[in-house]
């Protein structure tokens, strides 16, 4: 990783671009932007080595507001640009900014293949369970029955779960956080930045205009502690106002238990490094109404990284064979006319 020479100390302000932020006042995107601008200086990566690539959507305007390199590409295709860039310039730190429509509807395939290949990029998926920019149609994460501009009688589509899709795509780093959880988000973003390979962070984001309150059960300070399960590697899974509740495993089914009643050693212990993703998958199924929603790092494992393997093959080939274009020209049978 590239670190900044000692004498350059970056601050939040260094990452603020000269563009006016044009999201709706109160939009969750503003909070995410602020956290990102606060977290990046801590990474010690020079600003010019950071590239933000987005698709299309409210969320995808993100790069304009970051004083790094940035490309606001086309709908759903940001991961493909990121992959090409990373193959050309492995030393850059590449972030993909996408929405639930951009990343899971039109861009679902690229999202999935980038994770599968484990290209060394960080994907932030701003999930507001709606299409914001096009003014309020349902998205692949909108619940069945959601009434929107395009589903006046209620959506007839079963939603997907971002974490589940990422697991099906064999992602090596998977995390979830919430727009307004400043410290939590910052920690998760940093972990993503430091991960080798593709990192996915789903950010629960409130669209105040078209889907206000979709994540209220998490963000509401009153309900938060009852509804959130903070995942910590190696720690038993506890939640509730005073951590009085816990998750116990019953076959493949989770149970909410009172810690005082069953004892902490009965609780499921989080293991983000588990070689198989079954635990992460199990966790991805938890949520309202019967369970708390897990936040934090679901999974963080070491796995062959596409962009590294590519460069390894190039280096190996270069070590084994001189870069002799003329020899290539002369492959096969040649003859001389004099």
């Amino acid at each position, binding site marked *: 990783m590239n670190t900044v020479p000692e004498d350059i100390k970056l601050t939040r302000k260094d990452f603020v*671009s000269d*563009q006016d932020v044009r999201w709706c006042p109160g939009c969750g995107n503003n909070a995410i932007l602020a956290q990102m601008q606060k977290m990046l200086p801590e990474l010690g990566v*020079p*600003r*010019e*080595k950071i*590239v*933000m*690539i987005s698709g*299309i959507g409210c969320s995808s305007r993100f*790069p*304009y507001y970051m*004083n*790094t*390199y*940035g*490309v*606001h*590409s*086309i709908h759903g*295709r940001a*991961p*493909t*640009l*990121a*992959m*090409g*860039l*990373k*193959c*050309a*310039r492995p*030393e*850059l730190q590449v972030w993909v900014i996408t929405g639930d429509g951009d990343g899971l509807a039109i861009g679902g*395939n*690229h999202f999935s*293949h980038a994770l599968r290949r484990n290209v060394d990029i960080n994907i932030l998926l701003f999930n507001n369970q709606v299409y914001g920019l096009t003014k309020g149609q349902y998205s692949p994460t909108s619940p069945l029955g959601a009434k929107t501009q395009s589903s006046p009688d209620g959506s007839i589509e079963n939603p997907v779960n971002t974490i589940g899709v990422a697991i099906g795509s064999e992602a090596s780093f998977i995390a979830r956080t919430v727009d307004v959880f400043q410290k939590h988000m910052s920690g998760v973003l940093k972990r993503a930045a430091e991960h080798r390979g593709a990192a996915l962070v789903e950010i629960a984001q409130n669209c105040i205009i078209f889907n206000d309150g979709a994540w209220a059960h998490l963000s509401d300070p009153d309900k938060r502690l009852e509804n959130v399960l903070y995942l910590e590697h190696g720690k038993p899974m506890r939640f509730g106002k005073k951590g009085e509740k816990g998750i116990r495993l019953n076959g493949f089914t989770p149970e909410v238990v009172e810690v005082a009643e069953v004892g902490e050693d009965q609780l499921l212990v989080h293991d983000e490094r588990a070689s198989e993703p079954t635990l992460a998958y199990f966790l991805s199924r938890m949520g309202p109404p019967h369970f708390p929603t897990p936040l934090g790092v679901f999974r963080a494992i070491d796995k062959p990284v596409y962009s590294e393997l*590519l*460069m390894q*093959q*190039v280096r*190996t*080939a*270069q070590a*084994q064979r*001189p*870069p002799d*274009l*003329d020899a*290539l*020209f*002369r*492959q*096969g*049978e*040649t*003859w*001389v*006319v*004099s």
Partner: protein
Amino acid sequence: MSSRTREELQQVTVLFCGDSGDGMQLSGTQLSTTSAVYGNDVSTLPDYPPEIRAPAGSLAGVSAFQVHFAGHKIHTPGDNPDVLVAMNPASLRVNLPRLKPGGVVISDRDMFSERNLAKADYATNPLDDPALGSTYCLHPVPISSLTLKALEAVDLKHTAKRRCKNFFALGLVYWLYARPLEQSLAWISNKFAGHPLVAEANRRALQAGYHYGETSEAFAVQWSVPRAPVEAGSYRMINGNEAMALGLVTAARLAQKALVYSSYPITPASEVLHHLSRWKHLDVRSIQAEDEIAAMGSTIGAAYGGAFAVTGTSGPGVCLKSEAINLAIMLELPLVIFNVQRGGPSTGLPTKTEQADLLQALFGRNGESPIPVLAPDSPADCFAVAIEAFRIAVRHTTPVFILSEGYLANSSEPWRIPSLHDIPTIEVQHPVEARGFQPYSRDASTLARPWLLPGTPGMEYRMGGLEKHPGSGSVSYAPQDHEAMCRLRADKVQRVAAFLPEIEVNGPEQAALLVLGWGGSYGAVATAVQRTQDKGLAVAHVHLRHLNPFPSELGEILSRYDRVLIPELNDGQLALLIRARYLVDTVSFSKLQGQPFTITEIETRIEELLS
């Protein structure tokens, strides 16, 4: 033997055909290399079955390879073959219609069993058909059994021996055209170095075929084809796909850049991916994307990062890339897209050739989205066009389209191996001076914008597919900015014309007829024009390598001819552009058969127009 006549021919076309497993591609390449090494000019075209492995002996399973060699410069694999080597009934049925009247048929009589005849829909054995015998010069040779006999002494299994029959057939053709055996003998020894018995068997089969020609009374004449006058140099045979791959990697080397090739497999372009994925030692980074959209997206990403980035596909893939091509046009990034055109629309004729994606290259995107378009004129020319495409891309910071063709991709011709030092390098500049820097500022002569790389300190900037302010490049919805940027993008592509070499007119400066061609029909058109010129007709030939922009002098040239004939493997796409631009009443010669033009077709059309 010596009683046989020996005659000289200026050119010969041989078509080898048989079942997919019969090794006809190998016989064909051997004959072409031997002829090229001997000193002929050569042009070849394989014809694979669309099925991966069709049932043995079936019509669908016929594989063919055509070799044209001559004592003068040639440009096509030949119209109709003089000689047909047909290893089984199915291949005879499929290819006999193409043989010249009076042409030679060499057939493996052993394969004309009832079962095989039935598979080829023959009720009776055509080799016994007197009508056939009177139209063509029939040579039913028991190739299989003669091969087995010749290999009696070799300790190999029956099936392995049978596999040598393609060399027997080749040997016989070698005798017919007095070709030397050395090249093929050496090739066999080299190829089967690890299997001395196999090598021995193939050598013996080749020689047996040759001797059969010499001894059999059936062959009354032996022909020779003299050497062609050829520029001095080292040569090899090359097809369009390999030439494209080599051209791309050469372009990157000329600029000291990594080559990033991102592609999704599709016939007939996949071979370029196969080649490039083998050349990592030259810093080629090949990506097999999940689809064509991703291939285009990653090409943009790589170009943005400063690599020489290219993506290749065929027509349906271009459809999928089109949205992202427009992004590349908006971002004004240098990169190359090539389309190995095949028969369309839709899946169409995936293994056949066509030139029907010209208007798609020009107009197949929303909005005004100008892009330079080039087309190679022969297999080897793909090399030069690939380099030129990158030169233009970098000079004008623009994506560039190359329109290759299935025919060019698969056809082979001798390629004079260039020396890297003779090719001008490609100058690339990436600005690093942050002061006064504007991402969408312009080079006054090329209208290029700076190719600014992420990673450059102090020049962080953002850009995207939205319309821009000219200069700063920041998002602008202002009416005049959109107008200005649209004009700039169009002008920039027009500027390419200022850097083009002058058009070569082949023939009279003024005449009754000009034939205007593009792409892979060059060979057929050039030859047909030459022939009609030789007959004294007032006809000239211009070949367009640059389809957008057109060379500046084109309009003036067109105005000097009474009529302009445009032969195209489409429904008149270049004609439409020429008519719209120059208001010239062109005559279209349109062919939509999945097959290249024959020389005769063009020749006949010229004569009709001038009679």
